[in-house]
């Protein structure tokens, strides 16, 4: 560590203003603050700073994603060996999946960070840590067999069109990771339609979602399997247990809004119970809580709907936003045969509407207070 610090201190002057490499100041700055906590102190009032800066926020989210990633790697191997009928030890299973998932993760980080660095450099901004989370989520919501060049293209699209043209981290309208998935979804639909997923080389199996959409409710895996995640699906979405672990950390540290998660679950269950009461098709009569266990809804609700940039900002707005996500996902799953999974499109849709929701919440608040003032002045 000391060696590293010494090295950084040695090369630092050449990156400062007037230095030989001053053009690359933001790249250097980015690496330095990635390795060490910045030691800059405030020069003017006010001096109170929260220790919860962007870097720490992002690190906590990455930490919360780790259970999903590890389980996802294991599950890739598990699904593979189950379909080939081989018995394998835990470590061998994990290793198989690790080798499959690692390239996707690397491509996502290298491409995304490369573009982030380039933009920050050109614009003279500081590089910020926003992409660390996005780059981790992108592999988790991709199917395992997705070609690496598609991951690279999707990441580039998400970072440039989804984030940089709006002004970078904190300015985006949509969740960049979901945009990457949407790009693959619309560009190369054969890879990621949500009804079939790779389980072993040259063989793909139906996901619980497509079984349910086809009305084969009895074919669904047991609720227990779906909860622990022994089912085929995108890499990080299968285990609800791992997601819950992440959610617990996010809620405990106060980074993600529990209101969005809670109202999302409420929306899902509410809509599912409503359809259950109406009945009519096997999918509608399915156990309502199954919706929470299938597909990417749980992952989306915990890690992507709660994105502090693209979600609703007002507290009332968060309730509405979360509830709409949950309810609409069920509607799309049950009534739209073209899209077995609706979580991605619904979250993007509600991202679009989040500013509108906020606007009306603020307006309503203003109206309420004006009326209250009027009443008081009349008295």
């Amino acid at each position, binding site marked *: 560590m000391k060696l590293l610090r010494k090295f950084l201190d040695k090369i630092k002057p050449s990156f400062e203003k007037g230095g030989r490499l001053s053009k690359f100041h933001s790249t250097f700055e980015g690496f330095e603050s990635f390795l060490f906590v910045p030691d800059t102190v405030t020069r003017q009032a006010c001096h109170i700073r929260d220790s919860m800066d962007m870097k720490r926020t992002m690190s906590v989210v990455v930490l919360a994603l780790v259970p999903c990633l590890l389980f996802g790697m294991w599950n890739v191997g598990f699904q593979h060996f189950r379909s080939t009928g081989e018995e394998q030890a835990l470590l061998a299973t994990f290793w198989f999946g690790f080798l499959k998932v690692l390239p996707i993760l690397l491509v996502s980080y290298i491409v995304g960070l490369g573009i982030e660095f380039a933009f920050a450099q050109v614009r003279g901004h500081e590089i910020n840590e926003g992409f660390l989370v996005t780059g981790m989520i992108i592999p988790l919501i991709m199917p395992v067999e997705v070609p690496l060049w598609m991951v690279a293209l999707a990441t580039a699209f998400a970072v440039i069109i989804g984030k940089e043209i709006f002004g970078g981290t904190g300015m985006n309208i949509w969740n960049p990771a979901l945009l990457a998935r949407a790009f693959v979804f*619309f560009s*190369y*639909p054969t890879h990621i339609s949500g009804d079939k997923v790779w389980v072993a080389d040259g063989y793909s199996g139906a996901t619980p979602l497509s079984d349910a959409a086809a009305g084969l409710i009895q074919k669904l895996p047991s609720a227990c399997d779906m909860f622990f995640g022994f089912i085929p699906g995108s890499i990080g979405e299968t285990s609800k247990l791992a997601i819950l672990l992440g959610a617990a950390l996010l809620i405990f540290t106060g980074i993600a809004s529990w209101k969005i998660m809670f109202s999302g679950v409420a929306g899902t269950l509410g809509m599912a119970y409503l359809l259950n009461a109406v009945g009519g098709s096997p999918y509608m009569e399915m156990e309502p809580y199954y919706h929470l266990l299938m597909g990417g809804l749980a992952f989306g609700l915990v890690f992507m709907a709660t994105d502090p940039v693209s979600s609703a900002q007002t507290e009332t707005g968060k309730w509405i936003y979360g509830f709409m996500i949950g309810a609409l996902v069920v509607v799309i799953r049950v009534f739209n045969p073209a899209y077995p999974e609706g979580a991605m499109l619904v979250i993007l849709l509600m991202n679009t509407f989040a500013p509108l929701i906020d606007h009306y919440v603020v307006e309503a608040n203003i109206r309420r207070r004006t009326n209250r003032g009027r009443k008081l002045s009349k008295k």
Partner: protein
Amino acid sequence: MSEKEPLFSAKNLKLFTDPFNAGNPITVLVLGICSALAVTVKLQPAIVMGLSVTVVTGFSSFIISLLRNTIPNRIRIIVQLVVVAALVILVDQLLKAYVYEVSKQLSVFVGLIITNCIIMGRIEAFALGNKPFPSLIDGFGNGAGYGMILVIVAFFRELLGSGSLFGIRIVPESFYVSAGGFYENNGMMVLPPAALILLGVIIWVHRSVNNKLLEK
């Protein structure tokens, strides 16, 4: 009496060249977007569409400019529409006679040239107040500026979405997954939203090249 101007004076030339840069109907004025999304899946229809619009814009501006002193102001829109519609029908019949396949691909969008904002915009903004010849040049220039953007968008959409240009295969057959390769066409490029994204990128590039367009 002003001096007689030469036919291709610098001023007239500027009328023609301006729509290619600072006065581009699509990227600067943001007119005629709908057809730009609809006909740019392939290069050939995009070029035909660009030419058709150029012809209609040019001649309708010319004719309206000839009539500009006799058109009663209150019914001028109807007169303009009659002229434009007549020209569009001519173009439509010509396309059907000589390039039937493309005309079928363009389908309703040839007829919809009538409602293209660029044409009415040039007539209202320019032809009604200027002499016939500058109006003709102005119309041609704007039509061509529109066509240019169409061709750029269609180039990328056909290349990335179908792997071909003018229907000729550019991406080798052996690259495709079906032939054992790795490549796949980008399905999104065939959908209209891709044209919108591409247009946005073109506007982005245009504005970063031409600093005058940036709002302060």
